[in-house]
Every structure is written in C-alpha cells, then in structure tokens.
C-alpha cells in the first residue's frame, strides 16, 4: 500500500489538547512541515507562549523553551544571541503578543532580531475562557465585552503586522489565514519564507495567521471559519506587509 500522507516527525505523537475546530492544529502542522522541509530540526529552538499554545513544547519535536506571558520575543532574543546559528521561533497568540507582550515584540522587531515569530490571531483570549483581546473586533461579544466591544470605551483592535511593518528592523512580515485550503497553502508558503529569511540572516520575520476559536466565539467549526472570512479579513487584510530582498 502506498503512503499518501504522513505526519511530519517535527510533531511529536502527543495528542493535541486543542478544542474541536480550532485551527492551532493546522498552524502547528504548517510550522512543523516548514522546519522539516528546510531540514533545520537539529538547529531549531521553539519558544512557547502563555495562552492556548502554552503546551506547544509537548508538540514541536525540537528543543523548546516556555516563556512568561508576552515575553517570548525577549526569551528568543537571549537564546539567539547565545547561539546565532540556531533557528529560533516564537509561537504566540494575540493576547500574549499584542497586549501584555506589545513592548517585547515591538523591540525585537525594531532590533531586527534574527528570529521568526508565528503570531496566531483569533481575536480573543482562548485559554482563559473568551475574554476581550486587543485584536477583538468592534462590536464583538466576549466574556469581558458582554455588550460587544465598544471602541469609545476600550479602543480599537491593533493591526500588528501593519504597525510592525512601519519599522526599519523587520525583514519579512505577512498576514495569512487558514480558513480554507487555498489560504492554508498560502500560509505554508509564508511560514516557510519567514524561516528562510532567518536562515539567510536577513533579520526579523513574522507571519500573522488569522485563526478561529469556535469554542469561545460560540460557533460551530464551519460557522467560525465563515465568520473569520467575513469579519476578520476586512479588519485584518491579508498579504505581505514588508519584504526586504
């Protein structure tokens, strides 16, 4: 019997703890496949965040570090500066990266720190049970914006990719989505490109991946993907925001 598909060895056999319909699993696979295809397992060190992906160290079959909430880019900086030939990536959610870790991501980017950031944006705090995130859309209902996010009260969502693309430090910044197969394939290319940017020592690279959270959005998985496409993409336009040749 011919093998038509195999799980990459860059993911361990530990069962994922993610909710049904969550797209973290897809994004994990894309990152792992990129590491596999580039042949960099033995050089790669992943930095896990606080949030839903906190257990990423159980899933990525590379050396891993677990960082405090928002601090993954600082941890990655320390790690990369010690061994510049290691390939260091962080895997962070939107609460971790865009709220509590806003300073760390901004300064890692502006330093042109030669690391790769996988930024998973699902517009909500997932692990803690669906609170408002800095990326929550205006009007979006969460457990701490029960009447819908009111920009007059708590401001507007942050477009992190566009914001960081204004800096001179980053070499590659792109925003992708994983709501359908075509976009999943595009996201894979961007993630691979980000790692290639680091391998070529061009500097800071980040891929923002729009992701769904059926559990905390209160939707069925298919419905959540439709909501992502209809509501998140207009707020967070896809595409390459910065690329230094």
């Amino acid at each position, binding site marked *: 019997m011919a093998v038509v598909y195999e799980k990459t060895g860059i993911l361990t056999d530990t069962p994922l703890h993610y909710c049904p319909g969550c797209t973290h699993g897809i994004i994990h696979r894309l990152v792992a496949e990129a590491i596999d295809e580039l042949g960099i397992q033995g050089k790669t060190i992943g930095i896990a965040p606080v949030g839903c992906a906190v257990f990423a160290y159980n899933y990525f079959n590379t050396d891993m570090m677990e960082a*405090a909430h928002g601090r993954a880019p600082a941890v990655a900086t320390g790690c990369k500066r010690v061994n510049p030939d290691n390939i260091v990536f962080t895997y962070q959610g939107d609460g971790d990266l865009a709220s509590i870790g806003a300073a760390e991501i901004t300064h890692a980017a502006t330093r042109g720190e030669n690391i790769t950031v996988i930024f998973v944006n699902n517009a909500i705090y997932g692990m803690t049970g669906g609170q408002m995130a800095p990326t929550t859309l205006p009007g979006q209902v969460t457990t701490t914006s029960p009447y819908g996010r009111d920009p007059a009260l708590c401001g507007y969502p942050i477009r992190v990719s566009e914001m960081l693309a204004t800096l001179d430090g980053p070499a590659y910044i792109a925003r992708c989505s994983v709501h359908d197969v075509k976009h999943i394939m595009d996201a894979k290319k961007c993630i691979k490109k980000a790692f290639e940017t680091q391998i070529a020592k061009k500097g800071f690279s980040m891929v923002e991946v729009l992701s769904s959270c059926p559990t905390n959005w209160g939707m069925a998985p298919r419905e959540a993907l439709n909501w992502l496409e209809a509501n998140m993409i207009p707020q967070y336009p896809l595409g390459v925001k910065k690329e230094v040749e």
Partner: protein
Amino acid sequence: MGQKMLMKGNEAIAEAAIQAGCRFFFGYPITPQNQIPEYMSKRLPKIEGGCFLQAESEVAAINMVYGAAGAGARVMTSSSSPGISLKQEGISYIVGAELPCVIVNMVRGGPGLGSIQPAQSDYYQSTRGGGHGDYRMLVLAPSSVQEAVELTQMAFDLADKYRNPVLIMGDGLIGQMMEPVEMPDYQKPADLPPKTWAATGWTPQSGRERAIINSLYIDPAVLEKHVVHLYEKYAVMEQTECRWQEEMTEDADYVIVAYGTTARIARSAMRRLREEGIRAGLIRPITLWPFPAAPIAKAAEHAKAFLTVEMSMGQMVDDVRLAVDGRKPVHFFGRTGGIVPTVREIITQVETLAKEGK
C-alpha cells in the same frame, strides 16, 4: 592575583563577571548601577562571542537572561530596587525552570521610586524569593569592592552548581565607591556538571533527551514534586553555602549584626566601643540567604544582647530574632530612605544598652 587597580564597585563587578566567563549581559538603565551595563557595553563586544544588549525594560532584560541561560550561557543582569521589582516575574520563572544566572541589585531607598541613595530595604524581597511561588535564591552581600569581585565570581559557580539564580545584593555605596581591588585569577571549578539540559538544537540522534526549558507543571502532584525537589536543593545550600564573618564575638557582651556597607560602619563602632571598655563584637552575614543563624545562636549563649543595624526599618532583624530564639534581647537600629547610619549613632546605641544593663 593580578595587578592592584582602583575601581568603582559597579565596574569591578562587571569585570569580575567577564573574568568568570560571563559573555552575555542584558540590562536597562537605572541609578545607581549604570556603570555595570556601561562597562559591559564597552567590553563585551570586544570579546569573541560576547554580547551586550540594552533591553527595552527590566522585564525584557530578565527574560533575555532566561533565554540565554536556557541556551547554556553564563549570563548576568543588574539593576536597582525598582528595576529588581520588575524582574521578579522573570526570576520566578528562572527558578521554576532551574536556570543558572547572576542578578545584581544595587539597592536604593524605597518604597516606590524612593531615592537613589544607598539602602538595604530589599532584604525581605531578596531573601524570601521576591516573585510568586515557593522558592529561594542564594543572596550574597559584599561589604567591599574586593569582596564584591570575589562574590561575583563565586556567584556564577554557585548558580551553575545548583541551577538556581544567585543574587548579589549591594547598595548604592558598594556600587559607587572606589577601592583598590585585585582581580583573582579565576579558575572554573572542575566539578561543575555539564549543561546537558540546555536548549541548543536537538534531533532524535542527539543522544540526549529533548530539552524543554519550562516552569509549567499543570498536574498538582507533579508540581508538588518539583517544588519539593527545589527545596531539597535549598536544604543542601543551607548546609553548605552559609557564609559569615565574626569579629571579637568570643567574649562579646553586645553583638552587632550588620551586613554590607552597614557592617563596615558597625566595625568602626565596635572598635571604638572596645577602646571605651565595652565588649562589643560583630557578626557580618555574607550570605543573607541562607542566613547564618548558627553563629548568632552560639553568641546568644554568652552575649547580653544583640543590636541589629540596617539601612531599613528592620528586616534582617527578624532573622536575627529567629536565630536568637528569645534567649537574649535583640535590639534594632536603622536609618532608611537612603540615609547611611553613622559610627557615632551605633556607638550611642550600644552605650545606652550597656548603661541601662539591657
């Protein structure tokens, strides 16, 4: 020993760290410790593999330390009281993940922004952990620039030995004061365990376990086991790493307990009291944790009373009372807010005790 040089405490600590193999420094400006990052920023880029980075905050700096320590490097950060408060989150994680590093606190007056003058009011924070969770750190308190150099180098060895951060607790005076100093010829102890746990890149053929630098133990039973493991290390530290200096305690009626800068002033007071015919002695803790309770307990057998002197409203005095265990009176004298006690003030305190027969 090398050549004798005149150095500021802060610069001497930085050079001592480099001599001990520290090649990575992450810091953020705050008075009165700025000469440490400034010195590192000059020296480290000139050394192969060396890296100085000014972080965006103390929070980022301590997390860069976490990353560098996790990658197996000898790494240091320094700050002063408000900045050390900001580092507490990271220090707790570093302890939880069992990473070695050296942290310098040139203590200034508090609370809040406080002052930029010398103080010892971070004693509780330093010796009780400081961040969240059950943990301890080795806390070394130099009272001269020469001792700061020696303790800094020892700190790296102790951190590696126990896979636990080591805190050097100085004060503004130790940091800013210039004294003659000789850099020891540093020799790394041969018995330090190799850092096989470090995250440096792994494949299934690497011949070691996959490195996971982590402080999360979601199963309470596993976390309890982990914390008990940390406390087994602390028990060894308490037995083997306690350091202090005693002067004229054998026949002392009045034993002064003081550390760091305050101990120097207390030493002058003790000598003057002896000239007056009052039998004073001095116990100077060098490790604030583990605290040298044994020599204090021993002195309590014959001393009439103890006087703890601190640049705070009285923090170490609690540990002195625990060591004395009610057998003799333990008095306290302190100045705080950045004010340094004088020799005269300490003499007066002891004279009063002697006069009143306390």
